């Protein structure tokens, strides 16, 4: 069976080209879509998804059916905690950030313990944890969203900071640099790719697999919480399902960016490009003012096409 193959371009580059193409397609569909303001706005929206999907990238790279389905709930929890604790006061922002990050990291740690030591499949463990976090949110808030967002958060996260570019975009790129360093220049990074390719060979060459898994899920919780904090700076308010809509797009961004769901192969650059592609698709569908039913169907069809272009698994005959 001859398979459809793309010319030798790296998946992150394909996704980036696709994003640019989609942007100009937006201009054809809706005149006035292509301009600097709109471009900055899209990158800003993509930054939130990109930051939230950073932990997902690490977890998926680590293989072993790794996936973190608690990300959406952690995003919401972090935003709600930050909203409660900073009470609209700039001085309380560091405290709010610290508590939100600690909560996220703790939930990630529990996920890691379940996956690494109790051998619960990641999908089930993180799914169960998502339920617990959702329950925790209800128990904490009792349905009332008390608190406020500090002015400083809006100023440095979502409002234009330098050259009309909002702070979150800079934060996103700094994070990308840090993750690149983490993956390519540290022992942890090498070990993560190692366990993603093959857990047995990694263990035999001296990698403490459970420890790497534990760190990875903890980082995922931490990064999701950071994403939730950032998101609060954008929305300025919180609600029950704030993070929910980011859960599966975080997985989709990773896949569209060319990271294999089986682990061991991929990069955060890919996820960033994937986040741009997904954000563009959603923005385009919104700009076209389709009814919700058609928006959902189109999104599903586009996702399916994207996955079939470069999310394919190894064929049986190979």
């Amino acid at each position, binding site marked *: 069976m001859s398979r459809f193959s793309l010319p030798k371009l790296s998946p992150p580059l394909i996704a980036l080209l696709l994003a640019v193409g989609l942007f100009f397609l937006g201009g054809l569909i809706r005149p006035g879509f292509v301009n600097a303001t709109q471009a900055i706005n899209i990158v800003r929206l993509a930054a939130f998804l990109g930051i939230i999907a950073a932990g997902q990238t690490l977890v998926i790279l680590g293989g072993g059916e790794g996936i973190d389905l608690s990300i959406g709930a952690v995003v919401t929890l972090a935003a709600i905690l930050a909203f409660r604790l900073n009470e609209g006061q700039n001085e309380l922002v560091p405290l709010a950030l610290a508590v939100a990050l600690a909560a996220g990291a703790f939930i990630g740690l529990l996920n890691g313990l379940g996956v690494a030591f109790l051998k619960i499949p990641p999908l089930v463990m993180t799914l*169960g944890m998502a339920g617990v976090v959702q329950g925790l949110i*209800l128990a904490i808030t009792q349905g009332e969203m008390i608190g406020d967002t500090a002015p400083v958060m809006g100023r440095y996260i979502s409002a234009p900071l330098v050259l009309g570019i909002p702070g979150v975009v800079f934060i996103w790129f700094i994070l990308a640099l840090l993750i690149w360093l983490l993956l390519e220049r540290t022992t942890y990074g090498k070990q993560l790719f190692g366990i993603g390719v093959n857990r047995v060979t990694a263990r035999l060459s001296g990698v403490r697999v459970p420890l790497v898994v534990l760190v990875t899920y903890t980082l995922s919780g931490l990064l999701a919480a950071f994403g939730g904090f950032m998101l609060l700076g954008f929305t300025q308010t919180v609600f029950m399902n704030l993070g929910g809509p980011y859960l599966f797009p975080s997985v989709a961004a990773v896949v569209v960016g060319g990271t294999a769901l089986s682990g061991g192969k991929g990069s955060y650059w890919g996820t960033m490009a994937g986040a741009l592609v997904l954000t563009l698709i959603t923005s385009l569908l919104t700009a076209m003012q389709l009814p919700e039913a058609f928006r959902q169907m189109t999104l599903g069809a586009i996702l399916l096409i994207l996955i079939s272009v470069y999310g394919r698994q190894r064929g049986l005959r190979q």
Partner: protein
Amino acid sequence: MNERFQLKYVSLRQPYLFALLLMVVAALVNLVLQPNLLELRVLNGNLRSFLPLMIVTAGQAIVIMGSGIDLSVGAMVSLVTAVLVTQMSLDASAGQILLVILLACGVGMAAGGLNGFGVAWLRLPPIVTTYATSFIFSGLALWILPRPGGNMPETFARWYRQATPLGIPLGIWVAAVLVLLWYLLRKTKYGSYLFAVGGKPDAAYATAVPVTRVLFSTYVIAGLMSAFAALALTLGTSSGDPRIGAAMTLDSIVAVVLGGTRLSGGQGGVAGSILGVIILGLIRNIISFANVPSWYQTLVDALIILIALAGPGLVQLIRRRRVA
């Protein structure tokens, strides 16, 4: 002490025994909190409310045994619900009802077929594929039935709600039929193919098992089961909601795992998965009868489920420590 140790050993070899134990405990607690649980009317009502999830979970179990996963079952339930309540007229004759049910089954199988095509022929990862198709299905459901409503012939629905053939609740009949069908299926060539495909697809392919067709069929079965679940749901409520299935996807996966089927495939069964559904239902019953303050209900529910999911792993961890 020695005997207890042996019991633990047996429970590790037979994963669904843990589910059985869990169900007995849950049922006893439930019985204490709700003494009339075993009255036929109450039992029938309870089991009937578990019925749609039971049927969906049977389909999900087959997909998972083939080492896949179907995140679109809920959306397929929504889609078929929309088809059912818009095509059914209130005074439909038996023949017309049958025709609409056949149409519903066709829609479910076609939806499952799309998943199967993506996963089996295009070799796309099941998680993202079925997630993508779930948007297509729920979008279609919203298009066909923009807001909750629709029809279901009252006599048919009343029969469904009150039927207790031979004095046994309908829920038990359906569970028995599902388990029986599964045992028959497992004995066939298809059954062994399914385990082979789920366990070691490469080896299965090398030994001339029609891997692609078997994988495809599991998703079609899941689609068909979603259609039956949609029928049970609409009969239970006499109307349709285009978003009704949304909550069922994750519940079905949790139930399969509670029932001792591993997500890695090649192992497990439908009987355990149905136990999983009953456990989920009993836990929810217990929480509503135990007067847990409403803001804490979700937390308690999720914690119990998480502990139940972690249970077999915990037992194994303790056992390993003891041996070591």
